[in-house]
Every structure is written in C-alpha cells, then in structure tokens.
C-alpha cells in the first residue's frame, strides 16, 4: 500500500531533491566523477601513464592524441586529470568523514550534558576556530610530514570543529523535547537515547554541512598541494598540477585552466547539491 502519504523521510527528501535542477546537475556530475576516478585506476597504469616522464612529448597543446595536452614533463594531462579526481575525492570525503565522527560525538556530548563539559569542549573548538584553516593544516602537515594521509588528518580538524558546533546546537534544541523525556520514561539508557532519539533528529543540518564541507575541504587540499605541502609530487593532485602549470601560464595556459576548472566544477557541484539538500530537508519547503 504505497500512497502519497506513506513515504519515509529519505524517499520524500530524494523526491524533492529531484525537482531541483541545480542539485540534479551537481549530483550527476559527482556520480560521474566518482565513476571516472574508479575507472581511471583500471584504464591507466600509474607508473607508465601517469608519472612516467616523456620529454619528447612535452608541452603539447590539446590535440587528438592528448585531449588536454601534455605538461612540461610530457605527461598526458587528460590521464592525470582523471586519475587526480581520486585524490580530491578521497581527501574531501575522508577528512569530512573523520571530522564528522569526531565532531558529532563531541558536539552531542557538549549539547546534551551542558555545563562544564560543554564549556571545555566548546572553548577548545573556539581556539581552533580562531585560527585560519590553512594555518592549522600547514602546522599539522609540517609536524607530521607531507603525505596524503597527513593532509587528510590536517584537514579533518577544521571539519570536526564545524560539526561540533552544528551538532551541539541541534542536540540542545532536541534535548528538551518531550519525546526525549518519554524515552527516559520507558527506561532507555542515556547513550541509547542520544543515539536513537536525539541524533536522528539532528541529521538535516549535518547532511547539508557534509556536502558543503567536502567542497571546502577539496579547495583547502588543493591549496595546500599548490603550496607544495599537500599530496607529495609527482602524484597528479589537481592543486599540485595547477601549481606546476603556473610557470607556463603564458605559453601553455591550459595547464592551469584545466585543473582550475575541474576544482571549480567539483566544488560547484557539491555546493549545488548542498543547497538542494538544504531545501529538500527543510519541512517548511514541503508542498
């Protein structure tokens, strides 16, 4: 018996999301990007196609053999772009996921218990918030050394602080609702109440923040790679490729334009999806 009324919240949200053209475009782009980054691993060999130097082919503008041209070391930019998508995605998704777990846990504790615990957690978060993201990441990467994993750890701090704030605010509003009191009265222990009754009600703002933060994190990761402290060379990270293209911006501008556009479109797609989700999850937008 499926009628217009009995749809779960997930189905309802997805249905409304499909009505938003921007969000659909963003979603399609991201799905393609994920597929491409997976496929690139099968199509290309990292050692021969991605990082092998071939000076005879250096600095060719886009042509039939090399759709996006080649860089100063003769590597095919098209292959490197496709392969590089996985760095951006892994770093973006990975650090947001770690940040999500840490941030929501801390935020839920702070919001639920309040008082001294809340003060301790939130003032620590404030300290991190008051330092620019890139600065924190630079410090952490220089302490731990440059590697993809360390970059991921460096960036998850920023994500965690932002999730802590959002989770705390939502938990504080849900905490005092009557159904939480009702959950106590049937004898549920506190941790189960937080996990089963409070957090599921805080999901909407957190989901939106996830999509938006992945975009921000991808930009941050690219910026750090551009500065030379992100994904170590010769890996084809988009930010690093942009940085390499900088020296040839007058004679081979495509070396900068292509990774730049890729970063821009990925972040744009994530933001469109995030905006769409925010509208779709907002009960006031329901028709």
């Amino acid at each position, binding site marked *: *018996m499926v009628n217009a*009324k*009995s749809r*779960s*919240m997930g189905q309802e949200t997805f249905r409304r999301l499909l009505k938003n053209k921007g969000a659909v475009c963003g979603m399609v782009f991201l799905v393609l990007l994920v597929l491409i980054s997976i496929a690139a691993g099968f199509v290309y060999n990292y050692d021969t196609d991605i990082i092998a130097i071939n000076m005879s082919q250096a600095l060719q503008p886009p042509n039939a053999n090399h759709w996006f041209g080649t860089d100063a070391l003769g590597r095919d930019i098209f292959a490197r772009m496709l392969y590089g998508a996985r760095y951006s995605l892994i770093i973006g998704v990975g650090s947001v996921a770690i940040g999500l777990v840490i941030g929501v846990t801390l935020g839920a504790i702070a919001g639920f218990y309040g*008082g001294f615990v809340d003060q301790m957690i939130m003032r620590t978060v404030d300290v991190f918030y008051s330092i620019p993201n890139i600065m924190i990441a630079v410090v952490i990467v220089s302490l731990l050394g440059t590697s993809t994993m360390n970059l991921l750890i460096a960036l998850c701090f920023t994500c965690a602080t932002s999730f802590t704030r959002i989770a705390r605010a939502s938990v504080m509003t849900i905490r005092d*609702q*009557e*159904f939480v*009191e*009702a*959950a*106590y*009265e*049937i*004898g*549920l*222990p506190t941790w189960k109440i937080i996990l*089963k*009754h409070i957090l*599921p*009600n805080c*999901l909407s703002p957190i989901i939106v923040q996830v999509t938006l933060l992945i975009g921000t994190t991808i930009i941050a990761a690219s910026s750090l790679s551009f500065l030379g402290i992100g994904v170590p060379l010769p890996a084809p990270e988009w930010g690093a490729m942009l940085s390499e293209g900088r020296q040839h911006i007058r004679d081979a501008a495509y070396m900068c334009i292509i990774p730049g556009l890729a970063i821009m479109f990925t972040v744009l797609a994530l933001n469109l999806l995030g905006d769409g989700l925010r509208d779709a999850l907002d009960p006031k937008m329901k028709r």
Partner: protein
Amino acid sequence: MENSSILKVKDLVVHYETDDGCVNAVNGLTFDVGVKKTLGLVGETGAGKTTSALSILNLIPGPAGKIKQGEILLDGHDILKMNQSELEKMRGNDVAMIFQDPMTALNPVMTVGEQIAQVFELHQKASKREAFAEAKKMLKMVGIAESRANDYPHQFSGGMRQRVVIAIALACNPKLLLADEPTTALDVTIQAQVLELMSNLIHDRSMSMILITHDLGVVAEICDDVAVMYAGRIVEIGSAGEVFNETAHPYTEGLFNSLPNLKQQGEELVPIKGMMPDPSNLPSGCAFHPRCPYATENCAKEQPGLRHVGGNHFVACDAYNDAAFTLGGGVN
C-alpha cells in the same frame, strides 16, 4: 488496605532550586494507590501534580530539581534508593507514563512500530523481529490497523497518536500507569474514546493508575479515589463518591462551584477568588487561607494536617476542629 497498595508515597518534598530562589513544588505529599485502583490527582496548574508523577519515576529534571525527603515505595521497594540500572529496569516495565501532548511525545523520525518495539527489545530482550510483531499486536489492541506500524507519527491524527503513546506505555504490562493529563490536548469526542480505551485496558490487565487532570468530569468518570492537590500538598483525599458528594475542603468546593451545573442553569459561575500562590513564596500556615472564604486568624499560623472525616475520607482543614462546621456558609 495496608497490604493491597501498589504505591505508597510518604511525606514527599520536591524543590526546584533556581537562581531566583527555591520553588517549593511538592511539600509533604502522602498518598497510597491501591492495587487495581485508579487515583485521580486533581489540582490547578502549578499545584505540583506533574512533579509528583515525575518523582515516582525518579526523573525530576536536574540539576535544579531535588527530592528533599520522603519515601516512594513501589511494591515495597523504595524508588528513591534505587541505582541507575534498577531505575532503568523499573521505568517502562513496572511504571509507565502517558503524556499530555501526543504531538510532541513521539519521535518524529521513527516509525510508530519501532517506537513501540523498542520497549519490548529493552525490557523483554526480544529480537527486532519479535518485538516488531508484538508492537503490531499492541497497535491492534489500541484500535489501529497493524499495517500502519511502518508509518511515521506525522501521518497520524492527535487521537491516534495518543493511542500509540498508550500502546507504548502498556507494552510491558506495567503495574502502575501514570497518566499526565492524557486527554487535555484532544477534542471532546476523542477524549471520551481515549478515556474509554484506557479504562478498559487497565481493567483487563489489572493495572493501577494515577490520573493527573484538572478536569473533574474525567475524574468522576473513571477514578476510584480522588486526591485534590493545592500548592504541593494534598488538601482532600477520599473515594470519588466521598469527595464529590461530601466535599469537605473549601478549595474542592471552590473547584466544583467554578464548574457549570445542570441544576443551576443560567446562574453565574463562582470562581475561586485570587490566584494560585507563587510556589517560591508560599503563604504561611494553610497555603489556601488568602483565598479561603472561611479563613480565620489561626489559618495563617498553622499548617493543618490531614484529618479523618469518615470512611477513607481525609481533609487538611482546621475548620473541622469545630464539629459543627459545614461548607456553604462562606460562599457569596
């Protein structure tokens, strides 16, 4: 009488210690609930009814709320001396609660089936599947089609939601049900249905109930005993017949006078003059004396204790020191 009570509350004192002073919500509450009996707890907003109910579950909202003294014996076990895991075992299993507003008492992102099922999972260690099957049975019992177990609370009307709340409360066959104004948020026809459902289920399952309400009509309909609360104390307690027919306390009389009466149609209602006292600043002596039409000088000095006036009927009023006292003379 002594042996047949499921719940004994003795001299319960609950205070909320706020920055603006101490709120004396419950001040020396003593009452019994008999096995298979329904006690109606009646009083104005702020009389301490809900606080009393929450203390029976030891769920006074901290850190401000504190149970200062007293004993709450459920089947002989003192709830106030239980540790956390004993309390969690007791809640929902031995004592369950029904809330005033079914609109907010259900989790909006969980299906009603899951919400009923979690009680079975918790207290009877049932598997997910068994618990859900039990939940469907409970839904059927409260008059909701089993197929709706997968629906969310927003897909139900207010009366239906209150039925779901009742199903959750009755899931584990508690010995005692606390119903905190269960029908206040519902319209009159639904009120009657829900009350009938509740009293039928309670009789079928031999449960006791404390019904908190300010609706004397509801009390007359389903309660065996009635306790009238004022400013955190019981001012009159007895069987429903005694309290309704031989009203003894001036406050109870005031409550009845402020209800429309079929026999005196067209006459103006007589409200109780004045306001409920501020619980953080209660008047001396009998808390009702500033509003009482019979008040004497002595009323402001001493807090009257409960006095036996026949049968199971007790009243906390000094006027009954004078054997010839009857109500009615002081009402204008």
